């Protein structure tokens, strides 16, 4: 049984900083790995639909003909499977959480670049063409 136990606790609590974060005034805690929301770089998307097939909640839908990439944020559970499987790495995970929203406002649509023109295949063709021209 020790004396002045309570006094010690009170003094400690008086002179230490609060354990809670004054949230709206200070930004919320984040780490580099925090899964906030999915963002897309539309220029890099080749509409391969890998993210659509792998999404466990079917939040992503890709229209190949119209070249659109659409995410339903009310469905997305931020598991980052799409980010891991994207072949062109055009999907990234932002550390910022989304603000609260309504069911009607959760859908975002982006127009994307679509499948790449066959540039790597065309390059050797270009290489042979000048050679052919030279021959002529």
């Amino acid at each position: 049984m020790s004396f002045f136990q309570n006094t010690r606790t009170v003094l400690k609590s008086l002179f230490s900083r609060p354990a809670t974060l004054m949230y709206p005034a200070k930004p919320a805690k984040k780490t580099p790995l925090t899964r906030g929301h999915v963002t897309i770089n539309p220029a890099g998307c080749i509409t391969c639909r890998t993210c659509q097939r792998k999404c466990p909640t079917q939040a992503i839908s890709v229209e190949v003909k119209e070249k659109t990439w659409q995410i339903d944020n009310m469905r997305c559970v931020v598991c980052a499977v799409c980010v891991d499987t994207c072949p062109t790495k055009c999907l990234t995970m932002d550390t910022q959480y989304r603000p609260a929203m309504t069911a009607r406002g959760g859908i975002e649509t982006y127009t994307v670049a679509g499948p790449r023109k066959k540039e790597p295949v065309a390059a050797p063709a270009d290489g042979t063409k000048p050679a052919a021209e030279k021959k002529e």
Partner: protein
Amino acid sequence: MSKQITVPFGPQHPVLPEPLHLDLVLEDELVVDVIPTIGYVHRGLEKLVEKREFTEYVFIAERICGICSFIHSQTYVQGIEAIMGLEVPERAQYLRTIWGEYSRLHSHLLWLGLFADSMGFESVFMNAWRLREHILDDLEATTGGRVIQGVCKVGGVRKDITPEKLDEMIRGLKSMEHELQDLTNVFLHDSSMQHRLKGIGVLNKEDAYYLGAVGPTARGSGLPIDIRETGYGALGKINFKPVVEHGGDSYARCAVRAKEMFTSIDIIEQCIRKIPDGPVDMKVTGAPDGEYFSRTEQPRGEVLHYIKGNGKKNLVRHRVRTPTFTNIPPLVKILKGCQLADVPVIVLSIDPCIGCAER
């Protein structure tokens, strides 16, 4: 004999944040019979196994429970790996064990807080949750999620922890151990706590065994049942002893959980010292063909996942038996003969997680 009346307890109740309904049959203030009802938050997650590929279902298995989420995904993944005969890299096994023990720590701290709150001990509630925040910070820094980690996958884990972060984690836990000791002293030695807990809600060893109690509820009654001793993950290479108390009352169940936190810290320390270098995942081809019972120890007790596949991408059957579900018959037994005022504390002493029990 006085007249019997029935008092409904739940599904909405101030001390019980989850929808468990109990019909308490009272004689004056004495509980003579209890009729439990569940089924308020059934979500049909087990049926979804027919709609999703077995690799994606990990995320759904993880969302069975919001507290023991990591251990659910670990159990499911271990079952799939056992059917497919995969040899998971050793580093992944160690990382799974570390995260599993972290979730046990945060679950026990959450429970100690809620338990104190159910008795009206607000300051202990705040302090337990303040300590829990350090654990959640470490989980977020290493996995990206505070409560739903999402790092388990078939064939390993999705994230690796750097050696510097592992050192930082061990230092953080060491400095927290002193504060945890202060907190558990309140639960184990405070006189008002002892008045509310000692000799209340007694479950003897035979009843605990025959009614199928698991986890801290069984260990508080003197049954040394701990699935971690089977050595799943990397636990086979770790030295630890399960905490067993012999009182059988609410105090014993509380003491088991309070002392288990130190066991968890010890296991994490040993894992971090022994963790080998190497890859954390492997390539998985094919689909599971066969069936398997996968068992692990959750914060609340033994969880059992039955998995059956037929060589296609979708599984045929997935069945989960969660610890809370098996702890309801012992709870009914404990509640008979107690006073009405003790019901909230006794219900919380088995750590009910109804979201888990109904899926």
